[in-house]
């Protein structure tokens, strides 16, 4: 992997993370809207549109995170292959720095939303427009969806701050297997 390839890959992975967080937020939104007084037709339509939107976002985030080689080559162009190859440790370090920054920026909003939902479950009428308390509040779809979303966001943010080791390992493994295949292919050709 050359330096332009690495930069392109990092940018694509960062966009992938953003899209995935967006997917979580869109996918949980219909459940949050359930307790509102909108007409039934509006809610069903909103469910269908949100479902389609979340599928598109999920597919896009998976492409950006796991199948971004084609996009990466398209961005950097053929000239990037002539650049000198970089050490694998730089790849690990760059990915970890990018993930750490993404995690740190995400953790702020996660803590904000956790502080919004946790007191509601224990105290009741802190959440605007809700008079539910205790068990009722716990089982309300709005709170369940909102609370679940903030917990998932928090787990992802912490995983990113830890440097997403499994993702980096998978990415390196893919890169090395590809490079060794290329070398053996050239060897056979010669």
């Amino acid at each position, binding site marked *: 992997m050359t330096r332009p390839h690495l930069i392109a890959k990092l940018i694509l992975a960062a966009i992938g993370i953003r899209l995935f967080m967006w997917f979580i937020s869109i996918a949980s939104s219909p459940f949050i809207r359930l307790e509102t007084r909108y007409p039934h037709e509006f809610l069903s339509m909103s469910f269908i549109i949100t479902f389609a939107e979340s599928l598109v976002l999920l597919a896009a985030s998976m492409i950006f995170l796991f199948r971004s080689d084609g996009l990466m080559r398209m961005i950097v162009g053929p000239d990037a292959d002539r650049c000198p190859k970089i050490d694998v440790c730089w790849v690990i*370090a760059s990915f*970890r720095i990018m993930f750490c920054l993404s995690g740190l*920026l995400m953790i*702020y909003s996660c*803590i904000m939303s956790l*502080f919004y939902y*946790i007191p509601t479950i224990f*105290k009741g009428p802190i959440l605007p427009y809700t008079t539910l308390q205790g068990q009722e509040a716990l089982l309300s779809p709005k709170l369940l969806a909102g609370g679940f979303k903030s917990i998932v966001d928090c787990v992802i943010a912490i995983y990113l701050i830890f440097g997403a080791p499994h993702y980096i*390992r998978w990415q390196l493994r893919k890169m090395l297997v590809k490079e060794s295949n290329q070398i053996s292919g050239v060897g056979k050709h010669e």
Partner: protein
Amino acid sequence: MNKNELNVIARIVLVGVGLYVVIQTFLTILPSIAVLPFAKDSGQPGYMIFIILGIYVIISAATVYFLFRCANSISAKIIGNEQVDDAQVSWLSVAFRLICVSAGVLFLYWSVPSLVSSVFMYMIYKNQQYAYVMYPRPDIARDIIMLALGIYFAFGAPGFVRWQVKRTLKQCSKFEEQKASWC
């Protein structure tokens, strides 16, 4: 990567954070100006909106002054003077410190106006029997936590940076061991 290059990168990142703060402040203030004539109908004291807007302006002006005018001295502090034999270790710790300082400045920018306005709200409404009085309590706790985190990160988060560098180097050495089995 030599010290000059690291210095330039650190300055670019810090000025980038400063520009983000300016844009974010404009985006926060402009919609609020539109509702200023209706402030007295909102049930809150009329001066409240001016206090919140004032806090935003002061905090963002201080952040921008700090990041634009003192960028040289901050970047010098981020890069540090310690002589590390391994260039990669030095580069890694500078990169992690830089993202910690940037995240810390943003945490402070987000939490300080929120904390000050929560404290004002609490002081104004504490003697009134509104359900509204309930809001500031979790807000204040949350903002204090974010403020503490912001201060820690803005000062370079030394423990966090050491831990990240250690983990990264460990992952690199582990990878070198696994490399043969993967290929």
